[in-house]
């Protein structure tokens, strides 16, 4: 017998599992204790402060506050829509080979990014000093009649936002590989078709996270519109505090609403990001909801045999 190699497979003995003593993370315990101690101390300080916490629940769903929160939400959404639409246009103009459009875009961004948004709001508020009469040909009125607080806030916040959004969109467009444009052109698609069908959908992945950031900023920046008499959350809170004498308490109420709105939007953003991640990673991680459902299912399947017994 020349072939001495044993062809029979080795009996499958399960390998001995490693049972090692894990590394001790003493630092984590120490820092955890420090953090808890600090939180407790701050908590004690706040609870001993001369703040009448008991009025906060009373005003949380006050009619004026709820109306103010609603105004904050819709002015933010409208200003953001204006900002995104105008921002995309400005970004495309900025990247255009046409020197007129790219220069116009450059100056727009230069001005609206370079001056405080509060000043811009006040300028729109006083636009009647420059154009006392609005004459669109088919429509003519005094400017002071036209520029309601809502329109003033919308223009002031939206046009300012457009300058920031255009830079975000530009970064997104430039992040898409040039080969994509070439492939699209080689297929006979025009510049516009390439932008709409190929470039922007891919740029969205880069555009969305900072845009979410911008929107959350907008929810809070919209409080500046109280200077132009917009009845948003801060204005309403201030109005109430001037009669109820609960000044700081009303700001706490406003903060709770801001936190609520930003939390809701963070969740929305998470799902929008997933939508535009299509094709980029082989398997998307499950959403919290899917994870919960899966865990419940697993739990259920563990329990069932016991029930059967």
């Amino acid at each position, binding site marked *: 017998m020349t072939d001495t190699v044993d062809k029979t497979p080795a009996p499958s003995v399960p390998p001995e599992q490693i049972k090692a003593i894990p590394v001790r993370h003493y630092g984590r315990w120490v820092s955890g204790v420090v953090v808890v101690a600090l939180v407790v101390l701050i908590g004690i300080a706040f609870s001993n402060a001369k703040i009448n916490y008991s009025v906060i629940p009373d005003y949380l769903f006050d009619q004026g506050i709820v109306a103010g929160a609603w105004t904050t939400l819709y002015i933010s959404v409208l200003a953001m829509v204006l900002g995104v639409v105008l921002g995309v246009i400005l970004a495309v103009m900025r990247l255009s080979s046409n020197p007129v459009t790219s220069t116009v875009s450059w100056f727009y961004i230069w001005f609206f990014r370079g001056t405080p948004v509060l000043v811009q709001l006040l300028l729109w508020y006083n636009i009647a000093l420059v154009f006392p009469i609005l004459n669109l040909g088919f429509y003519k009125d005094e400017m002071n009649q036209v520029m309601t607080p809502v329109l003033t806030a919308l223009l002031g916040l939206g046009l300012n936002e457009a300058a920031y959004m255009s830079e975000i969109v530009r970064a997104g467009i430039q992040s898409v590989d040039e080969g994509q444009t070439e*492939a699209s052109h*080689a*297929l*006979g698609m025009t510049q516009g078709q390439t932008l709409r*069908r190929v470039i922007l959908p891919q740029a969205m992945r880069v555009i969305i996270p900072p845009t979410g950031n911008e929107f959350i900023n907008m929810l809070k920046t919209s409080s500046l519109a109280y200077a132009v008499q917009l009845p948003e959350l801060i204005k309403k809170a201030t109005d109430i505090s001037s009669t109820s004498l609960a000044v700081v308490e009303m700001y706490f109420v406003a903060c709770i609403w801001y936190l609520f709105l930003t939390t809701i939007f963070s969740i929305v953003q998470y799902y929008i990001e997933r939508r535009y991640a*299509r094709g*980029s*990673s082989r398997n998307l991680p499950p959403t919290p909801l899917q994870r919960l459902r899966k865990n419940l299912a697993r739990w259920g399947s563990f329990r069932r045999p016991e029930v059967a017994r």
Partner: protein
Amino acid sequence: MSSLAKDITPPSSGAPMVKAEGVHKSFGLSHILKGIDLEVLPREVFCLIGPSGSGKSTFLRCINHLEKISAGRLYVDGHLVGYRQHGDKLYELKEKEVAAQRRDIGMVFQRFNLFPHMTALENVMEAPIQVKRESRATARERAQRLLDRVGLGDRAGHYPSQLSGGQQQRVAIARALAMQPKLMLFDEPTSALDPELVGEVLDVMRDLAEDGMTMIVVTHEMGFAREVGDSLVFMDDGVVVESGHPRDVLTNPQHDRTKSFLSKVL
């Protein structure tokens, strides 16, 4: 297997499909193409070889006007590429007119350049719907047939990131064919692939050649050039050094530069 022949637009005459007359191309101070003269006949498989930086990819990109030529004349199917001539004056074509010229010229890139946000099927359907205004049903039917033809019918719903390099390149070929081009340009289609995946792409290209497609192929695959090519051009430093039938050039090169290049790659 169904033939691709019905997706090939027959050339309008027996005249050359591509004709280059003294084509030059410069990027700033660097002179890439220094007077290229050549003719590609209909139904011909025309291979371009040469060291990197010799200008072969640049020349290919000039044919569908991804690059503008600096001097000379370049014709595809009898039409000047990128310009219109009236008397002795040249007028630049508008963006839409350039796009219209490119419709009939398919291009396959070294790095595939599939649209990553679309499935394989959507990649192939996109241009016919957007450019030719085809109905979704018509485009889908042809796209599915082309994917079947390149052996990826069962991968239609996959995104490019879920496909291997060879599969992606075959989808890219199907995408170019969906526009029913009369000329196909291949820019080093197998250079970015793992060696074991090269064969599947070359097989598809060989089938395409057998179906009578006019093809210009920039390649380092000398075996493919010898077996499938009808003409071969060796380029170096922006000029055509040697041309002829692939068998002759590859086995019996006349020029020293060709000899030394081939001795390194064969």
